[in-house]
């Protein structure tokens, strides 16, 4: 069989599974995001409680996975407990190749277990394993270590798991895979937790046929050569995404201290260059990716009370983590920042949401909206990492009303305590680390995930530093075109870092060898259709573009392109949705 069209359906309530051939879906929607949104539409009833047994978890991979370099991602879809509508998150690690090697194109998990469970998935289906002995383990790292010893498949398996944040239903809890990759955004970890699902391990040994062996090898060599020779790929390999810190700080587009400002003289301490020079301990890659963008710091520190006794902690860092847990919180001491990243990783929280929630709390405290009676005695101050670390623990454990509110996200917390003008979320999802100009914000508002990855609005802003800023309507058209195309990439499923390599012809050619014939010019329409499906799901669950809240802070703090005009944003957002359904 060529295309990965089998869908594994696992029900946690009845502890049964079935396998269905859904060639119908894969033929039309390719795989990944396209298939995932169809399955979500099919299995998520309207108005489902995101933390109820009705909410399905969908994982989907695509026809290029396991065949071509950089086709390394799995798309997860679910109803988000953070935004109440579309939850979509992508992760690499070994997840994608593992799912396809186990013989599946997608996995749908439904129902909820009465007692803690973990799933062991292979080509013979699902083993429902008792997880009562590992439930309550707060560390996502420890959970991974235990399952690694319990299960087979070393080298090719994926181990997806949650930490304490997922168990405690923090609305922005993540699912961690292979220690350093995440289904980070929009709360998949809480959906796992609500189903008493601690982990999933998947492995298999299937081979994938191609339609034309010679053409396959030729196409492979062409993609491989371009991947290893590309300067963009070199950037991700050398310093990694953290190489963006210095340019953004220089352009004054690096959100700092809850976006009160966009630059800091101390930013160099937490720059990719400094971290590489002093801490970079290892680079690792997702399966089938020559780039190895995953940068891991080795932090060697003494135990305080015992001389000559050291521990070395391996802590992953990326641009968004440095923004959210560094500049946004004024934590410019690199060791302190690495500690905070480590804490957030271990508990299994989304780093971006956590940083934005805490930066709002710090400003709310400055302004007297919250006091130490709310924070259980903590006094939030920019740069005070030990206090933030304690707050992270409280967000997970939710010992009082205040931390319970923080665990629901910054939108919710600011509705309860005030300070909505500087509660930096878009569509309920906390802001990414680019205050580059108006188009980045139009992207956060209109993107189906409210993420910078939806359509890369920041790159349009950055181009406007040298050229002219497009008018609001032209900006909307550009964003829409990019986001529609990204639906194709995330249906294959190719890492967005490889978007320069997988142009339309390359996509069509590689798909053909994978057994999926499609004309290059038909891809645009398909991408747009997938994007519409995603937006229809959002609207079905109550999303209204006209009611999008834009935090006033966005207009107060100048971007590299000057102050942002609210009218520009509103006009562009309106145009985006007009074009989407045109």
């Amino acid at each position, binding site marked *: 069989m060529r295309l990965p069209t089998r869908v594994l359906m696992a029900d946690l309530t009845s502890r049964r599974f079935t396998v269905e051939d859904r060639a119908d879906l894969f033929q039309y929607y390719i795989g990944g995001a396209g298939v995932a949104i169809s399955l979500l539409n099919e299995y998520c009833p309207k108005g489902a409680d995101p933390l109820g047994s009705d909410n399905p978890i969908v994982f989907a991979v695509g026809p290029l996975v*396991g065949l071509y370099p950089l086709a390394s991602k799995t798309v997860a879809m679910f109803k988000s407990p953070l935004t109440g509508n579309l939850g979509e998150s992508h992760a690499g690690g070994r997840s994608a190749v593992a799912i396809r090697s186990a013989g599946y194109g997608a996995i749908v998990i439904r129902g909820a277990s009465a007692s803690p469970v973990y799933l062991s998935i292979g080509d013979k289906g699902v083993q429902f394993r008792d997880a009562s002995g590992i439930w309550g383990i707060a560390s996502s790292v420890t959970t991974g270590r235990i399952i690694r010893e319990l299960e087979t498949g070393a080298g090719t398996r994926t181990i997806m798991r949650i930490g304490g944040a997922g168990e405690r239903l923090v609305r922005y809890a993540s699912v961690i895979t292979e*220690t350093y990759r995440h289904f980070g955004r929009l709360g998949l970890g809480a959906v796992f937790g609500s189903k008493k699902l601690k982990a999933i391990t998947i492995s298999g040994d299937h081979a994938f046929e191609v339609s034309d062996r010679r053409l396959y090898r030729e196409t492979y060599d062409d993609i491989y050569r371009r991947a290893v020779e590309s300067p963009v790929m070199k950037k991700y390999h050398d310093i990694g995404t953290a190489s963006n810190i210095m340019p953004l700080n220089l352009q004054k587009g690096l959100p700092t201290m809850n976006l009160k400002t966009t630059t800091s003289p101390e930013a160099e301490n937490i720059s990719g260059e400094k971290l590489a020079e002093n801490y970079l301990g290892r680079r690792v890659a997702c399966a089938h990716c*020559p780039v190895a963008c995953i940068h891991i710091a080795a932090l060697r520190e003494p135990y305080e009370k015992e001389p000559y006794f050291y521990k070395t902690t391996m802590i992953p860092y990326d641009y968004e983590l440095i923004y959210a847990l560094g500049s946004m919180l004024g934590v410019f001491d690199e060791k302190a920042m690495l500690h905070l990243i480590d804490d957030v990783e271990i508990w299994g929280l989304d780093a971006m949401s956590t940083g934005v929630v805490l930066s709002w709390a710090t400003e709310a405290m400055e302004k007297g909206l919250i006091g130490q009676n709310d924070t259980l005695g903590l006094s939030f101050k920019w740069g005070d990492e030990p206090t933030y670390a304690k707050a992270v623990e409280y967000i997970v454990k939710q010992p009082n009303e205040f931390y319970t509110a923080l665990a629901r996200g910054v939108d919710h917390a600011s509705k309860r305590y005030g300070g909505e003008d500087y509660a930096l979320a878009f569509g309920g999802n906390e802001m990414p680390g680019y205050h580059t100009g108006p188009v980045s914000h139009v992207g956060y508002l209109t993107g189906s995930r409210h993420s910078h990855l939806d359509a890369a609005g920041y790159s349009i802003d950055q181009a406007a530093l040298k050229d002219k800023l497009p008018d609001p309507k032209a900006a909307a058209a550009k964003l829409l075109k990019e986001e529609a195309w990204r639906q194709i990439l995330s249906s294959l499923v190719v890492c967005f870092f490889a978007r320069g390599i997988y142009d339309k012809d390359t996509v069509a050619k590689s798909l053909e060898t994978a057994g999926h014939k499609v004309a290059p010019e038909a891809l645009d329409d398909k991408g747009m259709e997938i994007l519409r499906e995603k937006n229809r799901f959002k609207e079905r669950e109550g999303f209204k573009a006209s009611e999008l809240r834009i935090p006033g802070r966005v207009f107060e703090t100048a971007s590299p392109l000057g102050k942002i005009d609210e009218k520009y944003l509103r006009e562009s957002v309106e145009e985006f949705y007009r074009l989407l359904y045109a």
Partner: protein
Amino acid sequence: MTRLTVVDADRCVGCQLCMFACNRRFGEGGLAKSAIRVRSAGGFERGFVVVACRACPDPPCMKVCPVDALESRKGGGVVLKAGKCIGCHRCAEACPMHAIFWDDEANKPDICVHCGYCVNYCPHEVLAMKEVEQL
């Protein structure tokens, strides 16, 4: 004769391109028939182990084959005569490196032939083809 050599496993990023390359020799995607394997050394934080045939001059796998399906390869290692193989797994059990893998579908061992194809796809200089050096 050269053989596949793991020159520096510390440079390995775990991308597994070598594994995919090995499998691609059979004109397929995936990893089912790969005769080289990369796994973490107990979690990604600890780095990677590259498991590959070292082309023993006196191969233990060959000695235990009950049907003489493994023949000595010039320059070390073995060549599988698949027609003779009865799929008994003894060769895989005898390899101290655990470098003989199993093709469940065919019920035959996957054994490195030291062709060097994987080396072409290692972007991080972990693998090379080198002459066998004797101590």
